[in-house]
């Protein structure tokens, strides 16, 4: 096998952060190369250097692609050489059709007049290739994230792709969508496409990767050949965090106290279709010190349930009763829901959780300004103190709390959102996919935080698509499907098979 790509002694500094420190990284032709590491290790940055987003001159080191030294001036330059990156955040235009998105900037046109026949034909071919059964005219925002991800890959295939870079492609996908995506990458490999895949899901990495490179603190710490040696997950974790993690799901004393949150007959109408119910007649409860999971497939209505409870942030005509500590509470606005003791950590941190252009400290205090102000006047030092406290407690990697959140790595942004809601001091914390895109070490930190909350007698509702996580952490698991609860399992009776069978038999 020949070497397709070699990155030599790559360094990249941001104000106050040395994101990459003499990283050396090489990819063989025709392999699937996994790039793993903790949040903020520099994975995305390395790929941005490679794809010309940080152009020549903004980094140190050398890129050799296909035997020639490259000096990319921008992303279109690297695309011309067949290096295509699919970002951590999808970059499709929601109100354009699949076909339009695929050929955006690259239209099948003569003299600026688009040939729709050719466009649709080629789209159909590409969609077949990625195994997506949708009409080319379908608007992208009608597709779920899984399918959007496939459209992104089809878009990459529409160009002459030599090296496909996928930055956490499965972070937002359900189990089955993830499997389909990984199968597709394997199939592309068979067709000769080399890929680099960044992921925090080590089981997936083990499944597809030929080579695994581990980054830690901006430096390469290990490269494993997964075809010749057997690389265990523990081994990867040890390289990533510098120590082994004994227990992925830390223990806690399990005892349920008094009733904290009771939801009865909660029904919510879809925001656009008045005849569709997004949440049907859901009743559940959480006791003090309990961690309650909600399992289900993507689109089962879990986020809708949580957001409708949190100040009716989703849907219309919510009916039903909500009691906190036995008393019926008014949760008709977010402010009232917070006052009633609820907090909701969103699954979509960029769009709904953070003000990206603001600093870390302003984001952390936003949901509880009363605590850092007197008669409406802010105490900036109290604010700084609070932010510092959470920076340390949550191990947010940043030179200072006055950094803008947009400059943090994905996992560290998640910790900022969590800090914000912990600071709001809720009775019941609803976590929606709290470990999405988070590395193993940080996951453990978040699990420890959940256990701490439980010890303090708070209630935690955990929505997660990662079943092992629910099984490892929760006292009880509710199973949701098509907007309704279809079952409830105690931790000791629960297993992935039982959860799946509850979903399927419905």
């Amino acid at each position, binding site marked *: 096998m020949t070497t397709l790509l070699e990155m030599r002694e790559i360094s990249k500094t*941001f*104000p106050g952060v040395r994101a990459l420190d003499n990283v050396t990284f090489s990819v063989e032709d025709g392999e699937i190369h996994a790039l793993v590491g903790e949040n903020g290790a520099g994975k995305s940055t390395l790929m941005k250097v490679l794809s010309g987003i940080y152009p020549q001159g903004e980094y140190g080191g050398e890129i050799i692609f296909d035997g020639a030294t490259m000096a990319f001036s921008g992303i279109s330059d690297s695309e011309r050489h067949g290096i295509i990156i699919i970002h951590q955040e999808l970059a499709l235009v929601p109100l354009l059709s699949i076909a339009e998105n695929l050929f955006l900037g690259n239209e099948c046109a003569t003299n600026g007049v688009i040939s729709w026949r050719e466009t649709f034909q080629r789209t159909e071919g590409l969609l077949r290739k990625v195994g997506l059964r949708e009409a080319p005219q379908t608007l992208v925002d009608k597709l779920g994230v899984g399918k959007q991800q496939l459209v992104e890959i089809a878009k990459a295939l529409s160009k002459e792709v030599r090296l496909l870079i996928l930055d956490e492609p499965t972070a937002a996908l359900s189990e089955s969508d993830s499997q389909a995506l990984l199968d597709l990458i394997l199939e592309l490999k068979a067709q000769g496409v080399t890929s680099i895949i960044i992921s925090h899901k080590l089981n997936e990495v083990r499944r597809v990767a030929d080579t695994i490179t581990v980054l830690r603190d901006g430096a390469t710490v290990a490269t494993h050949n997964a075809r010749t040696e057997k690389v265990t997950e523990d081994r990867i974790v040890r390289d990533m965090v510098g120590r082994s993690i004994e227990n992925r799901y830390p223990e806690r004393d399990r005892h349920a106290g008094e009733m904290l949150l009771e939801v009865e007959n909660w029904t919510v109408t879809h925001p656009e279709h008045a005849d569709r119910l997004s949440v049907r007649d859901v009743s559940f409860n959480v006791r003090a010190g309990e961690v309650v999971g909600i399992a289900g497939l993507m689109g089962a209505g879990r986020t809708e349930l949580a957001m409708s409870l*949190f*100040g009716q*942030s989703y849907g219309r005509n919510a009916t039903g009763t909500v009691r906190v500590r036995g008393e019926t509470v008014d949760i008709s*606005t*977010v*402010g009232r*829901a*917070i006052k009633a003791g609820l907090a*909701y950590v*969103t699954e979509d941190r960029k*769009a*709904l*959780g*953070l*003000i*990206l*252009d*603001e600093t870390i400290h*302003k984001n952390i205090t*936003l*949901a509880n*300004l*009363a605590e850092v*102000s007197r008669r*409406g*006047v*802010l105490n*900036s*030092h109290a604010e*700084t103190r609070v932010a510092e406290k959470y920076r340390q407690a949550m191990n947010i990697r940043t030179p*200072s709390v*006055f950094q803008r959140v947009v*400059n943090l790595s994905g996992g560290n942004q998640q910790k900022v959102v969590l800090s*914000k809601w912990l600071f*709001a001091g809720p009775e019941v914390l609803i976590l929606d996919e709290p470990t999405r895109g988070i590395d193993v070490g940080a996951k453990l930190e978040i699990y420890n935080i959940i256990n701490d909350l439980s010890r303090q007698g708070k209630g935690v509702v955990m929505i997660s698509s990662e079943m092992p996580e629910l099984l490892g952490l929760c006292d009880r698991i509710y199973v949701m499907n098509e907007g309704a609860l279809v079952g409830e399992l105690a931790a000791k009776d629960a297993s992935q098979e039982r959860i799946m069978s509850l979903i399927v038999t419905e």
Partner: protein
Amino acid sequence: MTETTSSETDHAGGKRLLSYLGAHMREYGLLIALIAIMLCFQIVTDGTLLRPVNITNLFLQNSYIIIMALGMLIVIVGGNIDLSVGSVMGFVGALAAVMIVEWNVPVSVTVLTCLFAGIVIGAAQGYWVAYWNIPSFIVTLAGMLVFRGASLWLLEGQSVGPFPQSFQMLSTGFVADLIPPLGDAISAVTGDKRVNGLAMLVGLVSVGTIIWSGLRVRAQNKAYGIEDEPTSFFVARNVIVAGAILFLVYKLSTFRGLPNVLITMGVLTLIYAFITERTTLGRRIYALGGNRKAAKLSGIATERLTFFTFVNMGFLAALAGLIFAARLNTATPKAGFALELDVIAAVFIGGASMSGGVGKIVGAVVGAFIMGVMNNGMSIMGIGIDYQQVIKGLVLLAAVIFDVYNKQKQG
């Protein structure tokens, strides 16, 4: 310490200064631009620009733009825009004229009624924007037409005036000199015919306050390990600001002292700077403009807040309308025509972002002064209105390009 290490730290220090300057180019740039523009016009107008009478004039001419820029900044930071302020201002002036001149309503009642009318107008527009999600551009474009028409209708196409003395005082009045001895003492030194003691005192006190509070913030920042302005920058900036204030105040004091509007303007600027920077209300407005959905999910009453920004704008536009009418001593149907554009330009020159969440009160005020000085200077030079418009347009574009360029450079 050996030679080499000390020169190394010097080198690192120089680098730090540069990187600090890079990160805060915008703020210093604005101040430097204002001073450069003033010096430029001072030279080409042979010193007319900074004559006491012209400085007084500068404040009088720009007061209403600055007052509206305060409200506009808040609207824009909140993620909206208000195109109606020029018309609202004209309408309120017309209302005042009709009430006082034609209906003989007492001045105090008229002023209160007019301010209230501004609040109602702001509320009427804010309601649609905040609670119905109608784009502010459209609502206030409609408002611009409606109130332009309404003032024509009120005035029946005529100019109405003049106003009684007490109403004119709103704009053209000066604060009486309460401490002549200080002025006399200074004039004894400088040899001026007269020096207004109160003006000098206000100038000295504000310079003292600015330096004192600057030092206090520095001390606190140090205690909390926050990255701070390098000492040399701090000193230079304060010397420039203090020098400029003392210079302006001294010039004013040798003329007629402090204009009433200067006091109104100064106090309002302080209040709004405080609200935006130090209060939870201000913080929430920035959050609203920064990411409305995230702000809403943080428990912020985004609708009510948006509504408030428009009510506030209406109030300030009404105040500006009264001052404008008092200054011209008559209300005309054309009053405030196209003024919204100057106000909006001032806010963007001052560093606010079209998408919301970014901008500072001080920036907007300096932006308004940049526009004002250019207007004034070019008029003194006798440059035609045609060229004036072209130049102002280019300055706005340059300022915003500078902004975007700076942001990109920082990544």
